[in-house]
């Protein structure tokens, strides 16, 4: 990724001025990573907990109508994030402006952010469904939200640790 570090397209030397400052490139990589993190965790939630394990219910009787509408919009929104994020990643790689470690930091932050949102807003506030049915819910909620906080803290830590990727050289 030597060509990417200064925000230069691959194969272009410093004779051509940088078209995307490293700070901007890093910020964009962070956001791309976060978009993909949110979307991947949302997809994993549907595939693992709804379809494979069958823990989450498709719909439960305590779901509010606001919850129903927002779930419908959010699920499609996650799809858009997944696709838009993937193409932003491809764009940045092709332009040689991907700050790789920052993108990873954003990705982990996104994973945690989605899971925390899902655990608090979707499960508790909108009551779309619970983590699992027919069991004592508290340990499941604690594990769910605890895991999300762990991911979120790791993501924020990585974000701070990769700040150097955004500093201009020289």
């Amino acid at each position, binding site marked *: 990724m030597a060509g990417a570090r200064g925000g230069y*397209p691959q194969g*272009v030397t410093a004779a051509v001025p940088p078209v995307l400052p490293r700070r901007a490139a890093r910020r964009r990589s962070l956001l791309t990573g976060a978009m993909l993190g949110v979307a991947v965790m949302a997809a994993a939630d549907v595939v693992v907990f709804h379809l494979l394990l069958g823990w989450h219910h498709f719909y439960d009787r305590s779901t509010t109508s606001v919850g*129903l509408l927002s779930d419908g*919009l*959010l*699920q499609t929104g996650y*799809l*858009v994030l997944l696709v838009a994020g993937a*193409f932003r990643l491809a764009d940045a790689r092709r332009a040689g402006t991907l700050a790789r470690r920052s993108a990873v930091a954003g990705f982990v932050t996104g994973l945690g952010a989605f899971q925390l949102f899902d655990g608090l807003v979707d499960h508790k506030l909108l009551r779309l469904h619970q983590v699992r049915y027919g069991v004592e819910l508290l340990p499941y909620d604690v594990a769910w939200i605890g895991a999300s906080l762990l991911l979120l803290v790791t993501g924020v830590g990585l974000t701070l640790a990769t700040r150097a990727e955004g500093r201009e050289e020289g």
Partner: protein
Amino acid sequence: MTGALAAGWLLAAGTAALPAGVYLAGVRIRADGGRTWPPGRTASWLLGCLLVGAALAPPLEAAATRAPGHMVQHLLLGAAAPLALVLGAPVTLLLGTLGPTARRPVAAVLHARALRVLAHPATGAVLAVGGLYLLYLTPLYALSTRSGPVHALVHGHLLAAGSLFAWAVAGPDPAPRRPGTGVRVAVVVAAGGAHAVLAQLLYARAGELPPGAGLTAGEVQAAAQVMYHGGHLVDLALVTALFAARYRRRWRSASRRDVRGRRGSEAVARAG
């Protein structure tokens, strides 16, 4: 094989073969004129024809008397086939095949004021998803299971509205005043959301909906889940088509700039 079954196969095969044949003839005319046509587009159009044929073929028509089978049929006809057909760029092929005089009326239609309204993604979304609300929340569905013409009309509407929507959102074919990516993505999210809400509504009120259809609650719940997850799969394909077209366009213009001695990432920097 009974006569009705043979007629069913014939109808499905004919419905698939006719548009496939016309398209291939167009590609042939171009080739004779020494111009190539992307094979991916041909493949996409043929896939779309195949999906329409499969949706109308007797096995699926038989399965469609049960609710989950009906839902698979509706996803094929109303969403998967339209996207595949639209990605075949039939209007571009037509315009490129016709001579200058014959092209004029087609161009006039494309520039008509009425088409501008029809070509807005929101119109396609309302016709496609609104049509489903009408189908499942009113006695229309029950009627369509009893009347052959209504059944055919519903299928026609699904295919036409789905194609209109896919073209307005992602179509490589030209559209008058196609709005920017942001508006198109917003319309897809709203339409996908409305589709998912309808699926969950059917699930929640499976005993009563669709009115007068006499379907069991379990059957409707299974169908609702097919509708929900299948709808998301098709949304994924639609949004991918939209972003892929944008990505290709951007890098094509970037490489053109490269030729003039400037660099591609500039386009990315500006467009981002």
